């Protein structure tokens, strides 16, 4: 048998086990000096505690014994869920209080499940921040940036073993850097109604614009970031264009990449020298328009009458091409139509779940330079009930087995984790709150780290750790749940872990609420990790 657990050691030293439970442990002890030593140490410790308690007349027990009821089944889990739900609700309530009608309005819009409306939301949110909250947000980010800078510099100073003077100098420099109001390289403009960059006007920096309608007739020498209901670019943008709007129309020239999302995206007689990325209900590249780089589009309906200089990637219901694509076209679509004198210089790879002969319509004059290849739609993109496929259950089994192995390794490496329990009451609330904050704030902090201070490598490591923590949080929670279900002193960690994992895998796959449960369980798991780390730290 394997080594004695800490609980077995204790109960054996305290003579709390039955003879049937003791027998196999004694057999093991005869052959294992390590466990014998541990048992001796625990027994000695007991004698020390007994001596101290006996000598001291002031040992007290409350007259009324506190309730010590062991959690009945999953009661604590339910309580933790309730606590987490309340924390989420409180966070939402605070947010609503802070931002009032804006957020109420936002939730109303989000629940309408009408995706293009989210652009209204983006616009109104941005307008709100410009009108009301810019200073607050600025200060907030300055504080975060200062904090991160100070932490980084402190770490660096300690790491390099520099003198205190050096450290203080770094600190002052950090504060000066953050609080100095440097001239911004970003021109910010906003208007409730219509915002126009006139034909003769040149903006020498990058431009951030928000409004009901944004019209660019002039020249932007940097990047253009535009958020509005309607964005029209007639002039020239020498950098990149990043835009989200109900309707986006580009008739001018963009020297960089265009990334746009909206209900409709139209390139009408436009020149895009970089790549073209678009997600919308309808995407049109009109005749006379030219994309020099790759074009990647996701939409219900895509119409390409202009030209694409390199590869085309389309994710759509229907794709109509009457223009040209110089290299390959990779199409995830129900139907692709090559109309008139359509030209595809390279291969056409069509991924579809429908009959192949119905999926591609090609006019006699249309030309595909390479080969036409039909590929089955990847499994995850097929429109079918996942619960009816054996692959789903096989996948879940693999997931379960993987988590089980990871969990066993974790409990083997850190045996204390076997005795972690979900806290109730105030501690439960605190842990749920901290779990939520850790889960949500980590990616935001990583983003700031990525763009402000230490750079991408640290952010990438942090992201990896965060994803790992999400995974381990649920594995740890599974062990805790398993211990609630299976209660036996001579148990190893395997059976409870397996039981807990089964509960979690089933719960997170319940149709409809599986996603919410998954989130709640992750938050609780993060809270548990905090609880463990906090206890170890203390």
């Amino acid at each position, binding site marked *: 048998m394997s080594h004695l657990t800490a609980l077995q050691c204790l109960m054996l030293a305290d003579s709390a086990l039955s003879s049937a439970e003791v027998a196999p442990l004694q057999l093991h002890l005869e052959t294992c000096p390590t466990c014998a030593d541990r048992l001796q140490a625990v027994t000695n410790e007991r004698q020390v505690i007994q001596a101290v308690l006996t000598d001291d007349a002031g040992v007290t027990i409350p007259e009324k014994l506190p309730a*010590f009821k062991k959690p009945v089944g999953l009661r604590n889990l339910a309580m933790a869920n309730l606590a987490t739900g309340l924390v989420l609700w409180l966070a939402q309530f605070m947010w609503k209080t802070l931002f009032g009608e804006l957020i109420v309005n936002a939730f109303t819009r989000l629940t309408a499940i009408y995706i293009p409306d989210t652009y209204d939301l983006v616009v109104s949110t941005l307008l709100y921040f410009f009108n009301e909250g810019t200073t607050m947000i600025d200060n907030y980010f300055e504080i975060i940036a200062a904090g991160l800078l100070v932490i980084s510099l402190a770490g660096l100073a300690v790491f390099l073993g520099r003198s205190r003077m050096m450290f203080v100098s770094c600190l002052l420099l950090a504060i000066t850097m953050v609080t100095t109001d440097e001239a911004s390289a970003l021109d910010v403009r906003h208007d409730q109604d219509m915002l126009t960059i006139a034909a003769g006007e040149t903006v020498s920096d990058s431009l951030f614009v928000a409004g009901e309608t944004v019209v660019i007739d002039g020249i932007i020498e940097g990047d253009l970031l535009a958020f509005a209901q309607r964005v029209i670019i007639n002039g020239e943008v020498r950098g990149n264009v990043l835009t989200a709007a109900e309707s986006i129309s580009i008739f001018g020239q963009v020297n960089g990449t265009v990334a746009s999302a909206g209900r409709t995206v139209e390139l009408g007689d436009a020149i895009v020298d970089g790549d073209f990325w678009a997600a919308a209900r309808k995407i049109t590249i009109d005749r006379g328009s030219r994309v020099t780089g790759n074009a990647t589009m996701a939409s219900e309906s895509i119409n390409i009458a202009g030209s694409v200089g390199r590869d085309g990637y389309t994710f759509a219901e229907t794709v109509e091409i009457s223009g040209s694509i110089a290299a390959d076209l990779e199409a995830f679509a129900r139907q692709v139509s090559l109309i008139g004198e359509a030209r595809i210089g390279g291969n056409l790879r069509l991924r579809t779940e429908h009959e192949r002969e119905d999926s591609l319509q090609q006019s006699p004059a249309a030309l595909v330079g390479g080969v036409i290849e039909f590929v089955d739609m990847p499994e995850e993109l097929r429109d079918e009930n996942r619960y009816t496929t054996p692959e789903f259950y096989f996948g879940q089994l693999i997931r379960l087995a993987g988590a089980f192995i990871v969990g066993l390794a974790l409990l083997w490496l850190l045996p204390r984790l076997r005795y972690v329990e979900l806290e109730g009451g105030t501690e439960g609330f605190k842990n749920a709150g901290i779990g939520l904050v850790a889960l949500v704030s980590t990616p935001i902090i990583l983003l700031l780290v990525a763009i402000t201070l230490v750079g991408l490598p640290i952010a990438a490591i942090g992201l990896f750790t965060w994803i790992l923590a999400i995974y381990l949080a649920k594995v740890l929670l599974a062990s805790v749940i398993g211990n609630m279900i299976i209660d036996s002193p001579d148990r190893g960690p395997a059976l409870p872990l397996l039981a807990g994992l089964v509960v979690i895998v089933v719960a997170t796959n319940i149709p409809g609420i599986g996603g919410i449960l998954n989130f709640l369980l992750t938050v609780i798991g993060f809270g548990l990790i905090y609880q463990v780390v906090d206890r170890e730290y203390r």
Partner: protein
Amino acid sequence: MISHEDSERLNQAVEQLPDKYRVPLVLAYYNDASYDEIATSLSTSRNHVGVLLLRARQKLREELE
């Protein structure tokens, strides 16, 4: 492990333990109650008493470190 040298600090640490851990500890090592008796008194299971004692000892060790 806890040693005799720490007896005074140990005594203080026991008094500072939350009731949740202190009561089973005192019942077990001062009143010499069995796990089953403690479990009955506290309306819990024998194994949970073990876990509480295990935690109580961990906390005492941490306090004495």
